[in-house]
């Protein structure tokens, strides 16, 4: 039992790290650029497809992993220049409609190029197998690697945001763009940089998802909704909030799915318990978000002074 609890807890953290990789870019783009980018999930998908293609062609997971970053960045650059830039000054609703159009375009384009059959990515030799933790628990190495890369990304972001000049400009820009621009900061350049970095994190997450799930069209959209939940729980624009939100969502979702059926089974008859548990566990993260927002209407770590 304790092996199961431990394993599911780590799975929750792993899902959380994964969500964090995608949410980090989303919350920066949203908080700093004030852009709602529904197509952020498509960048995740582009990352996954590039690793499937490249590692399929070269036979090496690692070449695929490294090359998927410039591929996603290139896609993000084209998107930023052609579509996002004209939308900076526009209403959120216009951004929603335009990036929705972008999702249709990218998804359908991918279907045309790659067909409808899901692609699979082989797990790298070095990361397959399990390790024994604390002498008792065994856990898949690959999932552990995802947790590690999430921690590394979080550390890098924490360093950039809190310790560097660029980070200071980003923090200031999240609070009030116009004033920062008036002070002579090149906001347009920062915008593009943030968009590209956020896109690369999403692409990296997509690439790392490759060996765990099937790579298929539409994989980005469901993830996108989860990531919106994460950044809203954490407070928009806050990296710390995104990390906290992502870990909470990951753990609540995973634990709910694994343990709610048996917990409810203790009170109800098995047939209705499984139905209700399935519904409740899918609902749990949304319920969590509602509770958070009712108690703290701007998320748990609101960016101070941000005009939303």
């Amino acid at each position: 039992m304790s092996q199961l609890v431990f394993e599911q807890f780590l799975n929750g953290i792993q899902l959380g790290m994964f969500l964090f990789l995608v949410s980090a870019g989303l919350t920066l783009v949203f908080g700093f650029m004030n852009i709602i980018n529904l197509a952020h999930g498509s960048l995740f998908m582009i990352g996954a497809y590039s690793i499937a293609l490249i590692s399929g062609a070269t036979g090496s997971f690692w070449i695929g992993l490294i090359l998927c970053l410039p591929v996603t960045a290139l896609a993000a650059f084209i998107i930023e220049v052609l579509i996002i830039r004209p939308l900076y000054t526009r209403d959120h609703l216009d951004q929603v409609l335009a990036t929705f159009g972008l999702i249709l375009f990218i998804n359908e384009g991918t279907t045309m190029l790659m067909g409808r059959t899901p692609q699979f990515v082989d797990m790298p030799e070095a990361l397959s197998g399990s390790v024994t933790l604390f002498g008792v628990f065994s856990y898949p190495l690959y999932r552990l690697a995802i947790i590690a890369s999430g921690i590394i990304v979080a550390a890098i972001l924490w360093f950039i945001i809190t310790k560097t000049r660029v980070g200071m400009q980003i923090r200031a820009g999240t609070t009030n763009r116009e004033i920062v621009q008036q002070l002579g900061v090149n906001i347009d350049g920062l915008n593009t940089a943030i968009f590209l970095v956020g896109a690369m994190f999403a692409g990296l997450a997509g690439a790392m998802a490759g060996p765990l799930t099937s790579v298929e069209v539409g994989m980005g959209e469901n993830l996108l909704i989860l990531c919106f939940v994460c950044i809203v729980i954490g407070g928009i624009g806050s990296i710390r909030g995104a990390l906290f939100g992502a870990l909470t969502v990951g753990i609540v979702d995973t634990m709910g799915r694994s343990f709610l059926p048996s917990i409810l089974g203790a009170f109800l008859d098995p047939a209705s318990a499984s139905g209700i548990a399935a519904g409740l566990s899918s609902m749990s993260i949304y319920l969590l978000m509602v509770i958070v927002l009712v108690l703290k209407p701007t998320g748990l770590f609101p960016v101070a002074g941000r005009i939303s």
Partner: protein
Amino acid sequence: MISERHLPKLMALGVLVLLLLPLMLNASGSSYLISTATRLVIFAIAAVSLDLLIGYTGLVSFGHAAFLGVGAYTVGILSFHAYEGDTFFGLPGTLSGLIVLPLAVALSALVALAIGALSLRTKGVYFIMITLSFGQMLFFLFVSLEKYGGDDGMMMFDGRITLPGLDLNDRMSFYYFCLACLIAFFWFCRRLVASKFGRTLQAIRQNEARLSSIGIRSYTAKLLIFVIAGAGAGLAGALSANHTEFVSPALTHWTRSGDLMIVVILGGIGTLLGPVLGTIVFLLLEEFLPLILHSVGLDLLSEHWRFVLGPILILIVLFAKSGIYGLLFRSRE
């Protein structure tokens, strides 16, 4: 561009076209399109109700499909128990439209009251996300109703609801009934937004702080319009269940809420007529874009028509400031 002064005349013309549409479709031997037209009319009701929130009050609800679901499941569950001949919490099922429709609308309004009361504590993007959450929670609630088909949904084996003097199982009658609902609801909304209450709503969108400072309680007004919009979407959901004689959680999925938002923005927010135009354009593109692409020889794209629809949406956003309505009409101001 047409001046807004001609709007009443054009709307009368539009109603006339919608009235004659089934006759024309019958005459041209394409009566199967009556079903498409009915779907369009029902979707337009939901879109108009969402415009009350997005366009007039500035409340971007991303969970509007929840109320479609409540309306549809009210119809579905009552029909299910009428077919099985058993009871639901002691109440018998029924197909009588005089009971079912008002009940569907009332229940949607009640659910909207509960969701609105909590959601309206938040603002802006947080409101978008909290309404999305409630929508998703209802979606998963419907999925977990194993008795009513769970994931797969349920058929209405006894056919559509009954109304005295009108056979709704007849394609034409059902179309006209839905059209009557759309016209009545549209007329109601036009009156509503022109009223004093409507002014309050528009003031909330423009500057809520100023409104509170002159002593108007914006929360109550927002809650009221949220309930009205929810009731409208509930009506659309009830009609939709009858149209397809099938109810499933897919009706409540977040992509459905997304579609509703898309048609409202596409048509032009805050115009009521815009969302109707948006519905027409969006559903017609969905229906005919593959055929059009096929007929101009782009066979590859005909299967992948979304590849073309996406850029069309982007271009409309980038070059038409207030949607299709803005392209067609010149504002009076």
